[in-house]
């Protein structure tokens, strides 16, 4: 097809905006990662030396792998808790016998629109061993022995934050899966009823296979969202992602490196190298999903 002038005119706004806001900054970041700070304050071209430092220097690479491992755990918690719970809630919501479904739907979705700052701060208050309400509430049901200062212990802090994030965002998989469940025609469900496929077996044998494409979308959104995460950790634990970096994920690691924090001086070049690595990780994940998973999945027409 010949590229006619009006086609170019119509495409131009999107191309210009996308280029200005996405492509140029991306190229700028990649470019920035290839320079180092010179003693006189300027920048000198240093090729891939920043990456060599990031992966070769024991201190840098230790911090990087720690952040990546934490990030993977953060993602795993979301996949194992947020998405199954979201699917379960959607299944419950789509049950015709449930009363006040609209209320539950809204109530569960509301945290999603709250600011990270509020969520992080509120949960810090709730879980605080000194003035939080969590110890008191556990005490009221006789489970005070279970309480621990979860956000302050290295072994629990990351899991606790991941669960807080799950609490905040469980509404998103719920809504997407709910929409997918609603799109299954009633007659298919009625045919299943006639065939004696009811209750749980109906969910496993009929509904779940039909919402699998939506579960795929939810998974990849979770992956991208988690590997870009930063705000909640920053609000709850600060840029040092304590205790002892146990909640440090790629986003907080990037922030500290790029802008500096307390005694650490910001280094835009090393920061850009970390940002590039994050970009590569997410790109790899999305590619694996698109080529290995999505291409094998089919959307069903009813």
């Amino acid at each position, binding site marked *: 097809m010949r590229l006619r002038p009006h086609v170019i005119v119509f495409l131009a706004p999107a191309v210009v905006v996308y280029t200005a806001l996405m492509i140029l900054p991306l190229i700028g970041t990649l470019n920035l990662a290839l320079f180092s700070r010179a003693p006189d304050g300027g920048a000198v071209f240093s090729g891939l030396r920043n990456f060599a430092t990031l992966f070769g220097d024991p201190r840098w690479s230790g911090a990087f792998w720690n952040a990546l491992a934490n990030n993977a755990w953060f993602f795993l918690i979301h996949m194992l808790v947020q998405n199954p719970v979201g699917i379960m809630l959607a299944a419950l919501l789509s049950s015709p016998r449930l009363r006040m479904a609209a209320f539950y739907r809204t109530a569960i979705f509301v945290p999603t629109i709250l600011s990270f700052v509020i969520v992080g701060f509120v949960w810090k208050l709730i879980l605080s061993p000194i003035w939080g309400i969590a110890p008191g509430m556990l005490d009221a049901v006789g489970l005070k022995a279970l309480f621990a200062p979860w956000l302050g212990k290295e072994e629990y802090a990351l899991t606790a934050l991941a669960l807080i994030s799950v609490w905040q965002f469980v509404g998103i998989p719920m809504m997407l899966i709910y929409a997918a469940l609603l799109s299954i025609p009633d007659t298919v469900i009625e045919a299943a009823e006639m065939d004696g496929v*009811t209750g749980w077996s109906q969910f496993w044998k009929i509904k779940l296979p039909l919402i699998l494409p939506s579960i795929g979308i939810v998974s990849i959104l979770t992956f991208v969202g988690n590997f870009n995460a930063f705000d909640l950790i920053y609000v709850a634990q600060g840029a040092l992602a304590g205790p002892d970096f146990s909640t440090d994920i790629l986003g907080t690691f990037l922030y500290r490196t790029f802008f500096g924090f307390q005694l650490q001086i910001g280094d835009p070049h090393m920061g850009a190298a970390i940002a590039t690595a994050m970009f590569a990780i997410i790109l790899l994940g999305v590619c694996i999903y698109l080529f290995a998973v999505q291409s094998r999945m089919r959307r069903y027409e009813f």
Partner: protein
Amino acid sequence: MGALSLGNVTKSFGKNRVIQGVDLQVQDGEFCVFVGPSGCGKSTLLRMIAGLEDVTSGDVVLDGVRINDLAPARRGLAMVFQTYALYPHLTVRDNMGLALKQAGVSRDEIRRATDRAASMLALEPCMDRQPAELSGGQRQRVAIGRAIVRRPKLFLFDEPLSNLDAALRVQTRIEIARLHRDLGATMIYVTHDQVEAMTLADRIVVLRAGRIEQVGPPMELYRNPANTFVAGFIGSPQMNFLRAGPLGLASHTLGVRPEHLALSRESGRITGRISHVEMLGSETLVYVRSDDHGLLTVRLFGQHDYHVDEPVFVTPDDAHTFHFDSEGLRLR
């Protein structure tokens, strides 16, 4: 086995009563067709028999067992839906075998049952395909196969041909009739198409506004309609209704089928003007507008050379007329 009996069955949605006390006996092996215009409650009645809708009051009895409160799958019946309602993620074989698998039937048994159904419906080449790879007609045959596999006492068909194109509709209709002969099972079939009703049914149940208007074999309904509604619904093109007064008759309405109106250029009892002509080759339909009776349809066999706006005379054949009173009830 498969004798169904409905005893004063009603259905209400809130205050809205859509089925107004239906009594019906369907004999074992009978092909019974529910017809009626949209919203007459025919599909609702079928879904109540299936167990997909609760019965508000009355008894649904299959082979002497009251099945009102049984789960759909435990009633021993199978349903074919208008939209096929196949499971899109399963192959044709798995679609047909799912009910048996769920009931814990052995793998070999399921294989035998699905193969048997496939050979009855000429579906053998498609058994390992998914529904998306099939044509509309094939999909509907799979849906029928899914019902056959379960060996139900009663088959329920909910407008199964409505989503098919005209040629396929005739073909599938013949197939369903053949299936009924081969299986000898009881079938209840819902349609709004009176041609399907006439060609398939042993007995037709004409419904209007949640009530049975008349029950009987197709030719019985055609020859002896109980009221103007049944008379107008059975037979195509529709029966003409003439006002009896201007014709000097005692009844209120005179019903004449289009083939029993004679058309003439010279003389006749009703004067009118041709408003439209439809030539079908084997027959010609002439629409005549008369001042006293409105638009009348005249059906002539063969090809006739009539033109729009021609003045003509129409005469009913007195041997083939139906008289109705002011309530629309047949006077005999």
